[in-house]
């Protein structure tokens, strides 16, 4: 980990190793890639599209999607663009590639060809290489982003950026803690500093690539202050390497007041912390993820969850919304099911587009809470690391000052536990080592006591379990039934 923009020579030296990790690495020619990126029209660039939407108060819609084979992948994305009216397109990477298991991805590709169905849960971009990526980007009319969950995404970034993608999701924290088990944060932050440096390199040459820390983390009852802290720390790490266009994200919790407050506070705190460290020229946009936890199996109910996420995204004023499909509870959606989720979402973003923003004294109050919580965490973490972002993150997680609920990563404390309050807002049932003052803790306890009293039971882990299942069973709060 470093605490400064990586010197060019150092970056170039590391590149050689990165490109050697898989045979397709040699397809990347950085100078040629710059020229290729420069020729991409503004309406196909993520950064330009997002800034336009932000200026016009529009909420863009984007699906997740990826299959093993290029032609099928292109066909899928075309359907989502034309039939689903997606404003932005993804390319979701398969899990083998995410773990740099390119040989296994190869088996998946071969088997997919043989059996005629995609046996991978995403698009193995590294195996396919630069030219294939470009063919995909060129045959579509809207901007494309790489969405994955890769702890070490250096080669993936090299190939897909040379391949013409204009946005890259992830970060050293958000693609480690929820997506890995044994990776150290030192390692993943270092690897992501490389990714951000690569994008900083493009930026230095006049090409803006959008970066998006993965907001929802484990997608399961993550309180806003946790994901906000991660988003801001990752943004600082990215900005330090020269990234100038960042979309910070948040996964819907389901309580309207909390969700609106969360998106607004996220944007406000981003500006404040970027400013504190002198990264004033970074363009900030927001992404709202439709409910990321367990979905109802019934498709009609799933449509309800999707629509509520769409409505909340617009009411919260997010720049874009990531869309789920009615197949969510079962598996990777068909193109048609995916397009259906998009269409439901578009109907709502369009119907809500012209309506006025919602104001509420409770939104103000909730914003104050999230602000205070997030600030508590960030100040404690940044103090511990003496403003060295990487060290702050590593020590912060070690000390449990940031703690992501239900994370698989062993470097996460896994002590903090969330549960919903009586109105469905996500609070803390166990603080672990979160650096909250007594006032803040009393607030959370009172909120859960209010619920416990209404449900005539004790505050306990059973509430957490009930809340995990609640949405999939047709509720928000997991009441005893």
């Amino acid at each position: 980990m470093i605490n400064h923009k990586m010197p060019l020579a150092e970056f170039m030296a590391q590149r050689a190793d990165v490109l050697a990790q898989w045979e397709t690495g040699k397809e990347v020619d950085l100078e040629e890639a710059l020229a290729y990126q420069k020729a991409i029209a503004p309406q196909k660039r993520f950064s330009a599209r997002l800034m336009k939407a932000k200026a016009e108060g529009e909420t863009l819609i984007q699906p997740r999607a990826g299959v093993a084979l290029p032609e099928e992948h292109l066909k899928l994305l075309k359907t989502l663009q034309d039939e689903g009216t997606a404003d932005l397109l993804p390319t979701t990477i398969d899990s083998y590639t995410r773990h740099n298991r390119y040989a296994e991805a190869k088996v998946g590709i071969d088997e997919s060809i043989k059996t005629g169905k995609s046996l991978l849960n995403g698009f193995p971009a590294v195996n396919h290489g630069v030219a294939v990526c470009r063919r995909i980007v060129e045959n579509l009319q809207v901007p494309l982003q790489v969405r994955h969950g890769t702890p070490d995404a250096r080669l993936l970034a090299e190939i897909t950026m040379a391949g013409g993608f204009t946005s890259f999701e992830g970060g050293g924290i958000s693609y480690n803690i929820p997506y890995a088990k044994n990776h150290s944060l030192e390692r993943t932050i270092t690897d992501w500093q490389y990714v951000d440096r690569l994008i900083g390199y493009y930026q230095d040459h006049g090409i803006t690539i959008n970066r998006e820390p993965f907001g929802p983390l484990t997608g399961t009852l993550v309180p806003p202050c946790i994901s906000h802290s991660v988003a801001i720390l990752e943004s600082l790490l990215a900005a330090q390497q020269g990234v100038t266009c960042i979309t910070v994200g948040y996964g819907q919790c389901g309580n309207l007041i909390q969700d609106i407050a969360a998106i607004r506070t996220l944007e406000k705190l981003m500006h404040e912390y970027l400013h504190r460290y002198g990264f004033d020229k970074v363009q900030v946009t927001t992404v709202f993820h439709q409910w990321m936890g367990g979905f109802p199996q019934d498709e009609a109910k799933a449509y309800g969850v999707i629509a509520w996420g769409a409505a909340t995204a617009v009411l919260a004023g997010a720049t874009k919304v990531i869309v789920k499909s009615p197949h969510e509870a079962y598996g990777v959606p068909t193109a048609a099911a995916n397009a259906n989720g998009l269409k439901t979402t578009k109907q709502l973003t369009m119907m809500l587009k012209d309506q006025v923003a919602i104001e509420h004294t409770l939104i103000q109050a909730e914003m104050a809470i999230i602000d205070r919580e997030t600030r508590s965490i960030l100040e404690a973490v940044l103090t511990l690391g003496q403003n060295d972002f990487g060290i702050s993150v590593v020590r912060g997680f070690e000390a449990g000052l940031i703690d992501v609920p239900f994370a698989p990563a062993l470097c996460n404390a896994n002590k903090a536990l969330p549960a919903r309050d009586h109105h469905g807002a996500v609070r803390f049932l166990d603080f672990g080592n979160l650096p909250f003052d007594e006032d803040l803790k009393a607030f959370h306890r009172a909120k859960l006591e209010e619920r416990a009293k209404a449900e005539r039971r004790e505050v306990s882990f059973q509430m957490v379990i009930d809340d995990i299942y609640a949405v999939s069973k047709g509720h928000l709060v997991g009441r005893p039934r």
Partner: protein
Amino acid sequence: MEKTTVVIGVIGADVHAVGNRIIDYALTQAGFNVVNLGVMVSQKEFVDAVIETNAKAIFVSSLYGHGELDCRGMGDLLKEAGLEKVLLYAGGNLVVGKTDFEPVEEAFKAMGFDRVYPPGTDINQGIADLKADLAALG
């Protein structure tokens, strides 16, 4: 009486941790001794854990869609280790996409699994089956 040991874990490169925590909790509540290998568990780790702990059953979870690729040969591996009597269950979102469950069940049974569960199965169903199967084995 000693508690029966069950090995649980999420196979392959799969990191879905939430269901795993609930299965741990539910099996423990139901009186089993749970050996939880967590996420990203290889076939070998499952088998080693069974040998080490003398477990009577394995609950394999696979959520992320690569279950079919990841579980291939698992039955054989158990057999090779002389553990054919160990109950082998699989659940989660075993294959990519929303499909009929029957062919999936067949494929997994052919790979040596005793019981195979569709998406979103209530874990108590798995526990009830486990008790029945253990009773049948005597």
